[in-house]
């Protein structure tokens, strides 16, 4: 082989240097073409005082959330409240004050006593502004067509639970589904890892004939367990922790969370054979719970904190139409609504509403902290409530099943919390007829248990 000459070596070295510089320069030009940041929109936080104690003061508080300021300080916001005594009539405008503390919302108004103590409660909506960008938003989005509605707890049934004693959970009457992790029919999918946590089937529902339908989103299907066996139906879902509801005509509704490519939540309506009928974006940014309402699927959403119907008689409602139909409670087939408000560490307020009038109400207090309300549904002349209780000190949890009437709790029991894999947040229990069903999981697989509510124990 011929030895390279000095000139060749020098030329090659110069070529490498110039080439590398050129490559870096081209890369820099490419990177400089990155999209410029957009300004994030205005958002807000407000927890409405749904059920108030008569005679007490009422302060409405709002957090205004805007694009982060370069100086790191909070938004320069302002806002107005449009409020009225009772549930109809003209609204009166009140300006929000800006406080020093933002723990419960920096912007607030103390309602005048004639509004706070009005016999039929009060209703209101807010128009909030970011003075820096000029952006405004109405909360709830339905404005005067669907305002926040607040009701006084008069003639309330008081229930004191005291200190919960763990270790006395009721055993189920029947295990109706036991499915190992896997992908075959009769098995259910498990996603995640030990490092990141596991997610299993995220929701389920029970038909009037007792058929249990499980959203097996990891395997993109719905599986139905009946006395005839197991049947799997493929559905086109993203695989996120979705909620699920069966309608009486066999329609299957899947409420998907936001994900990496679809930043807004979407409700998908599927026919019984798994073909998609429609998909509709929700009015609000966040959802808590999906339920089959009297006219179609309805969703408890945030920031409105209202139940918004997403379809009526099989047809999807646009976002404005959803917002314009917002209600404070979940509506049932008899036209009544159930209102739920968890207050502080251990208080739960509940009311049954007919139109805009409270028919019955309960105030439940517990010395052991209460968590979320998984279920609050009318069952005949009673209200079935499932809430979670937990300890801060030794990580113990139970579900409390409370069957309420005007006298208090004629029946109640505790159910063990068995949740090895994550599910949708308020999808652990379903009521069908006189049976309460519970979705649970262990390292072995998923199960659905049934508890009979009409049995005296």
């Amino acid at each position, binding site marked *: 082989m011929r030895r390279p000459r000095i000139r060749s070596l020098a030329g090659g070295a110069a070529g490498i240097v110039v080439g590398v510089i050129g490559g870096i320069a081209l890369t820099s030009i490419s990177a400089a073409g990155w999209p410029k940041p957009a300004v994030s929109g205005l958002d807000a936080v407000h927890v409405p005082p749904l059920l108030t104690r008569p005679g007490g003061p009422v302060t409405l508080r709002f957090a205004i959330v805007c694009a982060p300021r370069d100086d*790191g300080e909070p938004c320069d916001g302002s806002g107005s409240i449009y409020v009225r005594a009772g549930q109809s009539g003209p609204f009166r405008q009140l300006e929000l004050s800006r406080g020093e503390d933002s723990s419960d919302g920096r912007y607030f108004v103390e309602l005048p006593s004639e509004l706070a103590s009005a016999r039929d409660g009060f209703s209101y909506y807010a128009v909030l502004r970011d003075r820096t960008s000029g952006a405004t938003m109405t909360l709830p989005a339905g404005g005067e067509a669907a305002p926040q509605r607040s009701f006084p707890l008069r003639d309330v049934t008081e229930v004191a639970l005291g200190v919960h004693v763990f270790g006395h959970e009721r055993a189920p009457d029947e295990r109706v589904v036991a499915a190992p992790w896997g992908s075959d029919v009769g098995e259910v999918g498990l996603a995640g890892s030990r490092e990141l946590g596991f997610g299993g089937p995220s929701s389920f529902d029970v038909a009037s004939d007792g058929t249990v339908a499980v959203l097996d989103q990891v395997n993109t299907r719905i599986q139905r367990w009946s006395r005839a066996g197991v049947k799997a139906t493929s559905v086109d879902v993203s695989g996120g922790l979705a909620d699920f509801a069966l309608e009486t005509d066999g329609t299957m509704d899947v409420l998907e969370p936001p994900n990496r490519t679809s930043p807004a939540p979407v409700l998908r309506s599927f026919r019984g054979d798994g073909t998609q009928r429609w998909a509709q974006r929700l009015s609000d940014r966040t959802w808590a719970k999906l339920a089959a309402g009297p006219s179609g699927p309805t969703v408890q959403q945030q920031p409105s904190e209202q139940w918004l119907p997403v379809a009526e008689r099989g047809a999807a409602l646009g976002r404005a139409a959803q917002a314009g139909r917002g209600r404070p409670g979940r509506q049932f087939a008899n036209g009544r609504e159930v209102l739920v408000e968890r207050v502080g560490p251990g208080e739960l307020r509940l009311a049954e509403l007919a139109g805009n009038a409270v028919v019955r109400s309960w105030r439940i207090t517990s010395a052991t902290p209460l968590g*979320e309300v998984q279920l609050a549904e009318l069952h005949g002349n009673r209200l079935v409530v499932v809430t*979670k209780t937990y300890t801060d000190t030794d990580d113990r949890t139970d579900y409390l099943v409370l069957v309420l009437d005007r006298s208090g709790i004629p029946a109640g029991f505790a159910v063990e919390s068995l949740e090895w894999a994550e599910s949708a947040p308020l999808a652990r229990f379903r009521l069908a007829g006189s049976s309460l069903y519970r979705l649970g999981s262990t390292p072995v697989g998923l199960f659905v248990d049934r508890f009979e509510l009409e049995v005296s124990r």
Partner: protein
Amino acid sequence: MKAFLIAFGVAIVLAGATGAQAYHRFWANCNYDAPTFMTTMTRDAAQSYANAARYEGYQWGGGCWNYDDADSYPYDVPGDPSAHGEGGDCSGLTFKTWRESTDDWRDGRYYWRALRNVHGPYTAGDFKNGLGAPNHIVAKSTAGVMDAFASSTHIGMIFTRSLYGGDQIVEAKCEACGTNIFYRTYRSDPSYGGVARWGWTG
């Protein structure tokens, strides 16, 4: 001249290939600027900061994003920090939102802008255990706005409480989930504990 041209061609192809790879890694757009030392830190400013990270994706071990409301690399391999995609992970988002120092003995307030690529020294499990001078454990039943719930594998901040007793949680949960606000029941979940930042000023 022939040697120069051959070497130039090879070099520019190699440099271009490296450059192309850098272009396809979001971290090429991030910076390592010093944080701004702050005397204030309010919960609603923290809400705005975390809220603006919504839609910007998730990157395991990451802490850098822009504000274009899209995850630039939504299909990175989960759990691979070398993917260098957009977004924070759960503890990175919390660290930046809580204006913490990379030195775990400092409890001052350090404002990290979105494109500053920093994850911080804490895992979710560290937060759960209240490690680091700025952090402490709180009772879950009294945890409030922009406090957090942490398990050994995840942490999410409380955007606000909700009527049904769960919480709206702002979190970077997983590659497929992205960063967003989700309704969660961590408060009553025994695998989660309450954790908070010292030093809120309003």
